[in-house]
């Protein structure tokens, strides 16, 4: 049975995860690679890396980190932030991203969705929308929620899906940061408008918020959040178990041994790769060792 997905989102600037992170057992709490590996071990179904770098240099660091993560973490990886052209798609896909999320870039040039979908397939193109109610109407905001575009959100999302966006991330600015739960009304309206997968974002404060989300809006495929995972307020393996207890299909990697099995396997895999690498390229610095091993 297809499961509901849980997706942590990491904001990355100049190669570091922004927003305080509160994790025991991690050597470097703001290393995107360490955090990505940890989330993968806990049962995250996918990861989103959001590039909030402003400079070209920072962008280069970002793609380097993306590459290193894709070499060590084997779950789907979506990249967003600063995607404004097909060349941007190309740049991050070459570094191991599986999907690319476009937001303001599509508002500036809506044809990017069609172009990218034709080149890389619909499954690769994620339309991310920042939505807020204005006079009772769902409205699209651009530039990280700063600019009111006046565009009707439901119409915008429907058109994006028609143009080839294979997945929609709906970020409700009305519930974002409030931690009072997801925006069920907005998500329901989007799910009625499109037949592609819908990812809910904005508002998660506790495990129950995810249970309510999947129970109340069955059309939603995934829940995305950032700080509640980073701060350790919601542990993904606890969340998965709670989902399953509530009758929501959830991927739990090892029914008996918990997540330890995954951790061991991933460490073994990393170690095997390193040994191999070390054997072939004597003297080369083993940069991945700290990445996956605790």
């Amino acid at each position: 049975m297809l499961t509901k997905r849980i997706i942590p989102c990491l904001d990355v600037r100049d190669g570091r995860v922004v927003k305080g992170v509160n994790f025991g057992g991690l050597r470097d709490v703001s290393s995107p690679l360490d955090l990505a590996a940890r989330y993968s071990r806990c049962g995250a179904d996918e990861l989103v890396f959001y590039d909030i770098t402003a400079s070209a240099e920072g962008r280069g660091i970002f793609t380097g980190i993306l590459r290193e993560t894709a070499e060590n973490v084997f779950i789907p990886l979506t990249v967003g932030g600063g995607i404004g052209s097909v060349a941007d798609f190309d740049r991050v896909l070459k570094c191991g991203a599986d999907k690319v999320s476009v937001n303001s870039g599509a508002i500036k040039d809506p044809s990017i969705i069609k172009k990218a979908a034709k080149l890389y397939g619909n499954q690769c193109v994620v339309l991310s929308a920042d939505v807020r109610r204005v006079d009772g109407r769902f409205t699209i905001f651009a530039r990280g929620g700063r600019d009111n575009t006046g565009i009707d959100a439901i119409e915008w999302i429907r058109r994006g899906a028609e143009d080839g966006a294979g997945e929609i991330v709906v970020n409700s600015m009305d519930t974002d940061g409030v931690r009072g739960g997801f925006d069920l009304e907005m998500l329901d309206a989007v799910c009625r408008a499109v037949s592609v997968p819908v990812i809910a974002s904005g508002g998660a404060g506790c495990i129950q918020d995810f249970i309510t989300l999947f129970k109340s809006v069955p059309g939603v495929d995934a829940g995305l959040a950032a700080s509640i995972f980073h701060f350790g307020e919601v542990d993904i393996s606890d969340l998965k178990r709670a989902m399953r207890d509530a009758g929501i299909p959830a991927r739990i990697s090892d029914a008996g041994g918990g997540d330890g099995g995954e951790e061991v396997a991933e460490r073994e895999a990393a170690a095997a790769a390193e040994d191999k690498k070390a054997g072939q390229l004597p003297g080369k610095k083993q940069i991945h060792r700290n990445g996956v091993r605790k």
Partner: protein
Amino acid sequence: MTAIVDYGVGNLFSLRSSFGAVGEEAAVTSDRGVIMSADRVVLPGVGAFGDAARKLSETGLGDVIKEAAGEGIPLLGICLGMQLLFERSFEYGEHAGLGLLRGEVRPIAETVPEDSLSGLKIPHMGWNSLDFDLKEGNSHPLFKYIKNGDYVYFVHSYCAVGCESSRIASSFYGAPLTAAAARDNVAGCQFHPEKSGRTGLSILRAFCEMRRPGS
């Protein structure tokens, strides 16, 4: 060494990395000599069947893959690469496949009974559980390190049908869809083992233990 066939379709970065993660050297190649001397061969692929089949034919790599399969070299098709192993596909027209496995590729929407279709999103995207088709009570050697019901990651709108004799696992999405198929040294999985966490790596590890005759 495992040869990952590069015929100009898709991004092979993650796939090559995943073989590295199970300690296997993998070469991304379009060279016949490298493919024919490899211990095993992987046929990857994303995108449309027709495009991919045309590229395999234009580059001559389709014939190389058939030759390698004929020599008994273990072959694993992944996602579209698995679909290409069958006889034909009906994705935007009708296209011939490599014919290494019996069966054809049809839209998921045609495979699922009508009363199960409502609310079913296409593509089938996300993590779904594997139901092994047991042969003489045993699961296929590719699954030796995983359990029935383990989850793998899918992204597809078409699926293989008419392949009951070679099907080794299915996943339920409105109907049981072919998740993996195998016959002798030729195998394919519809899901992405390189994106399926520990379960996926365990499948690749099992594949890397398959040997060509005489080695």
